[in-house]
């Protein structure tokens, strides 16, 4: 009972703010303190709000593309790191990959801002301000998404059964075929975790996005919400949007967990089969 109370207290502390936000997204007043009655008008207004829609789409484009790019590069990087023989080089490479993660965001942000302002602006063939901003955001977000992918893929590589790869190579697979047919399926849970991590990190990033846009014309969702505080308050349609996002992320997590547990169940089944086969042989 004592334990339960402790757990309940933890959950209340963690989730009360989110629940309050969800409740107030159904408020009929434009207030963050007074609840005037149930209404869906903020949901209606967020669906009509062009600026928010545009910002959401920008955020999604950047988050999806940067996390995909980071996942591809990160997975290969992890494989490369795992195959390094020299321990000194290995640990120094790991340190370098970790820097974007442990480095204070503001430092990364400012340094990238200088870099992009100096280099990207000189590229004359990019004429549109939006494209320039998008490219810099994409590069920046990929950079800080990378270590999360590498760190979630590396342990999977260590767990991986190397004999299977060797068997595949023995049986006539080319190294690329062996990678895609044997290794990648085993790494997939780690790769997916990395992808989701990189996605969420990119989606809610504020500090870096705030600084790195050389033309400052593209607005992502966190930037839009921040700028709303200038005159007046953040309107409850942002609460409605956040509620949408919470539900989407919740569903994503449930799906990921379901997939994970299914994999586990399958693995157990296979193990059981193997055992039975061995017993039958005996």
């Amino acid at each position, binding site marked *: 009972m004592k334990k339960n109370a402790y757990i309940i207290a933890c959950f209340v502390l963690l989730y009360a703010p989110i629940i309050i936000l969800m409740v107030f997204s159904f408020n009929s007043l434009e*207030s*963050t303190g007074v609840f005037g009655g149930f209404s869906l008008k903020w949901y209606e207004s967020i669906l009509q709000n062009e600026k928010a829609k545009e910002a959401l789409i920008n955020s999604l484009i950047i988050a999806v593309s940067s996390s995909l790019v980071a996942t591809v590069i990160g997975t290969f990087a992890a494989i490369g790191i795992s195959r390094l023989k020299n321990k000194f080089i290995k640990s120094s490479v790991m340190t370098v990959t970790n820097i974007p993660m442990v480095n204070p965001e503001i430092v990364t942000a400012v340094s990238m801002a200088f870099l992009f302002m100096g280099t990207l602006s000189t590229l004359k063939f990019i004429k*549109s301000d939006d494209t320039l901003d998008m490219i810099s955001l994409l590069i920046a977000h990929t950079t800080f998404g990378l270590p999360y992918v590498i760190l979630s893929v590396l342990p999977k590589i260590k767990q991986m059964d190397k004999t299977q790869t060797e068997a595949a190579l023995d049986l006539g697979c080319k190294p690329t075929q062996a990678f895609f047919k044997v290794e990648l399926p085993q790494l997939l849970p780690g790769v997916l975790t990395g992808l989701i991590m990189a996605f969420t990190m990119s989606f809610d990033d504020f500090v870096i996005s705030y600084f790195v846009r050389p033309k400052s014309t593209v607005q992502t969702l966190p930037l839009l919400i*921040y700028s709303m505080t200038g005159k*007046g308050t953040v309107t409850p349609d942002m609460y409605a949007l956040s509620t949408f996002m919470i539900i989407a992320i919740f569903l994503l997590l449930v799906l990921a967990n379901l997939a994970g547990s299914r994999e586990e169940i399958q693995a157990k089944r296979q193990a059981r089969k193997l055992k039975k086969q061995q017993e039958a042989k005996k």
Partner: protein
Amino acid sequence: MKKIFCVLLAVSVILFAFTGCGEAEEEVITLNVFNWGEYISDGDGSWEYEDEDGNVIEIPYLDINAEFEKYYAEKYPNKKVEVNYTTYASNEELYAKMTTSDASYDIIIPSEYLITKLIRENLIQPINIDNIPNYANIGEAYQAEGVSYVTENGEKTYYSATYTFCKVGIIYNKTLLEETFEDFSQEEFEAEGWGVLWNEKYKDLGILQFNNSRDAFATAQFMMMGEDNYEGAISYINASVLDEGGKEIYDRALEKLKEQQPLIQKYVMDEVFNKMETGNAAIAPYYAGDYFTMTWNCEDYELCLFYPEVGSNSFLDAMCIPTSAKHPEIAEEYINFMLSVSDDPTENISAINSEYICYGSPNMLVQQDEYYKYFVENEMHEEAYDILYGEDVFRFQKEGFACLDEATQNYLNECWDSLKIQDSEESNALPIICGVLASVIAFILIYNAIEKKRRARYWD
């Protein structure tokens, strides 16, 4: 493997290049508008006008930027303009963006003191009001020397077109005050002026203060002007430390704020909405335009607003064209459009925008517009018209912020910091340090206990 990579890279580079070219070929001009968040009508919702015969006209809050694109396409059929609308949260953010990044905006809407600074630093360009026929709609009272125009040799060079104006007032919760004090009288209360923020009587009901140096100091400085019966030319709020006696004004104001500190429930900006609407606090100085938002949301209490007799800060935001603007002529077209009026209430751009924002409109034709008046009186607040446009309300010459020189700004920041440090030392730091220490000790104790048990079990 390597080859595949090379091909992929090449394809992606080409694609990027193409996207760039594709946009350029269509010849769509992008007009970059940089404005405060939530500071333009965005096509969300509508309101209803009912005339004496009971006929109802529904007036939508138009999406002004989209309307401008339409208007421009009609006027110049061979050109197409797209408004790229981005937002910022403070004047300082805008200034930083203008000076440190190579972003180029065509329209910006800063506040008065920043405009003066931008003019001095040559960051905004003069506007040609011959291209803006609607500039004449802006009332004389809402144009100011050094902000809207600069006079040289008797000739005015225009730099900005006033977008909105407003004033700081004291908002109070009448219901709560009446419940607490039996002999509460509104007239007496309002006659106290800024003094209500310094009155210990109201401490328990909750007094709020601005959490920004200039506004907070202005409350103290106006109070001092009342005490001194000051009639000089330069208002205390614009005193410079370089002038004789200037420093003393800031020192005195700081003393006043320190004296007020124990009475203040919290220094707030946005939080004021929440606190006033729920009755958590009863007295707060804030911008009059935001008072209307509070009264809509507040159902249980009656909130009132008054301007202290001695004066309070009058401010304005105005549209300017930065020197780095790519399309100044379209920007002028945009300014003209923002000031345009129409007899049809559903197409009256300037009025609809003011209805959305709730701050005062400098557009004289809007102020006299029958539908706008109806909106202000029926939808905003019964007394809203007087609050915004009452006689002698907007006194920019006397009550507006001028751009402080650097030394004064630094001194003001110093004073503000010393006030805030005292604040945080008393209220926040100690409990936090105690909490951290307590949790660290608790963690060590628990860890030791667990470790002991584990070891005991191991040896068993």
